């Protein structure tokens, strides 16, 4: 909005864009949760004042380019391997905040091994897991977390358990591991949910900074393009379907 000057009186200011977000235009589709979650990460890092000592690991998937939006040091990892990368980075830089940011294809399909083992070793990292039940970047294929009956380009008749098994609840799985201290499931489909999610994210980071083992935060997320729905319909569908299969709340907090 070039040329347009908006003046907000200090007492009326309820929300300010964090300076840790860069000026780059986000490439995420309208209605996608990644943009909101990227922003939450930026806000939490800024509020904790750790932008100079935080290293983020991006995955392969729509959020591979999150490094364009948050002004910290980043490593872009191979598909599924972010947790292996983060394990090494954190061990070599124990004083730094190290987190991964991964989709459900990245974390719960190709990278299941690396993710579970980083959790089991109790690496002092935060794993941000964005579960939109599909492979967004490659055009909406089925993922391990795709809901029963859900249509995708590789399950055009709807997910059928006899063919594809069942929605993979990896957060529930890692909650059982001794190396993991905090597992929570959140969403950002409403302003209230987003505020709660931010609190949880901050707690996850604080636990990592205190070397409490893995903090695992799942965001139940939308993929309007992959789901072939409008942004509004996506949010509704998330509430009616995704949150039934993946209910929000803490799964572990020690």
């Amino acid at each position, binding site marked *: 909005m070039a040329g347009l000057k908006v003046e907000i009186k200090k007492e009326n200011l309820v929300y300010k864009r964090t300076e840790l977000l860069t000026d780059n235009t986000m490439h995420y589709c309208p209605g996608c949760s990644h943009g909101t979650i990227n922003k939450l990460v930026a806000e939490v890092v800024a509020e904790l004042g750790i932008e100079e000592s935080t290293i983020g690991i991006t995955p392969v998937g729509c959020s591979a380019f999150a490094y364009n939006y948050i002004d*910290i040091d980043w490593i*872009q*990892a*191979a598909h599924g*391997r972010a947790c292996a990368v983060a394990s*090494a*980075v954190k061990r070599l830089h124990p004083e730094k905040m190290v987190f991964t940011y991964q989709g459900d294809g990245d974390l719960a399909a190709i990278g299941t091994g690396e993710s579970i083992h980083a959790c089991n070793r109790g690496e002092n990292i935060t794993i941000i897991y964005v579960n939109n039940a599909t492979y967004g970047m490659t055009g909406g294929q089925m993922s391990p977390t795709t809901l029963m009956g859900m249509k995708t380009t590789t399950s055009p008749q709807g997910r059928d358990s006899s063919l594809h098994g069942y929605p993979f609840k990896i957060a529930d799985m890692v909650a059982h591991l001794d190396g993991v201290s905090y597992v929570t499931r959140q969403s950002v489909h409403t302003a209230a949910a987003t505020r709660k999610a931010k609190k949880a994210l901050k707690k996850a980071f604080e636990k990592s900074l205190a070397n409490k083992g893995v903090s695992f935060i799942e965001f139940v997320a939308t993929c309007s393009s992959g789901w072939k729905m409008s942004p509004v319909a996506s949010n509704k569908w998330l509430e009616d379907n995704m949150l039934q299969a993946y209910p929000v709340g803490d799964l572990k907090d020690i």
Partner: protein
Amino acid sequence: MEEIKLMKGNEAVAIAAVRSGCDGYFGYPITPQSEILETLMAEKPWETTGMIVLQAESEVASINMVYGGASCGKRVMTSSSSPGISLMSEGLSYIAGAELPCVIVNVQRGGPGLGTIQPSQGDYFQAVKAAGHGDFDLIVLAPSSVQEMYDFVYDAFDLAFKYRNPVLILSDGAIGQMMEKVVIRPQTARKTNDEIIEECGSWAVTGKRGRTRNISTSVELDSVEQEKFNEKLQAKYKTIRETEVRFEEINCEDADFVIVAYGLCARISSKVMEMGREEGIKIGLLRPITLLPFPTERLNELSKRVKGFLVVEMNAGQMVQDVRLSVTTDVPVEHYGRMGGIIPAPSETFEALKRFINKLK
């Protein structure tokens, strides 16, 4: 006084890692190289130099841990044997694509598949032609003694940081397992974080204190930019070819026939050379120390005055193709090799050489 120890090739790699100031090793057990991880775990360098050692859940994880550590400007390495190196292909490509320094050791065993745990040189092509997808080169060093297993860890890290490129030490199960005397160097201090920031600050991911952010990545969706990057890589590889070729030559000045062999086969071939010389056949030996870059020019020079090359390898004939590509004359180039983990004996190799020579008469 010099510190000299009797040790296995694999142990030499581990001790060299610690002594050279390596920051991190990540590996997964596989015969015939598990002693590298075992020795490191027994040495506990995290209590002395601060080096970290981590047993990964797979070679895929190992190489991606290396990717992470290398992204931080740390001196990091992994080791494996043939099947494990295959699993590292994608990671190696990412490391080359992000222009990161690191060291990988392949203590080769025979294949294909699970194959045998006995020594082999069957991974030559993989090392020098196709370590992973996309246009990239490793730098490949081939030790032929336990001392070189030790020394090449230092050389590999130097080259890796000089060129910001992955360096592979291509060894084999025999060199890894055999014991020899090794001269050990005094401890080199690990680089401090401040030293790393000073030396690698333009690219290393260390937390963006006092500078704009660094991003370690290999992705570029704009083809024009990607091609520019490919050209930059190729220019680097050309510099490496022009500056870093290393080889050892014995008795080539007057040789009629030159054996070309690396690693264990070079040791066998030097015996063959002696046997030949005793019978009055003028044999020389050229041992490539860098397999990539390859001693192309020297082989071509020699091809103008020798009567033939015999390439001795523990494989079906791999390096022989590079020797043929190196020579511009029509001098015959023959291969003698054993596979399956069989080490060629000097006597059978000498017979092969004599058959080759007789054929030329």
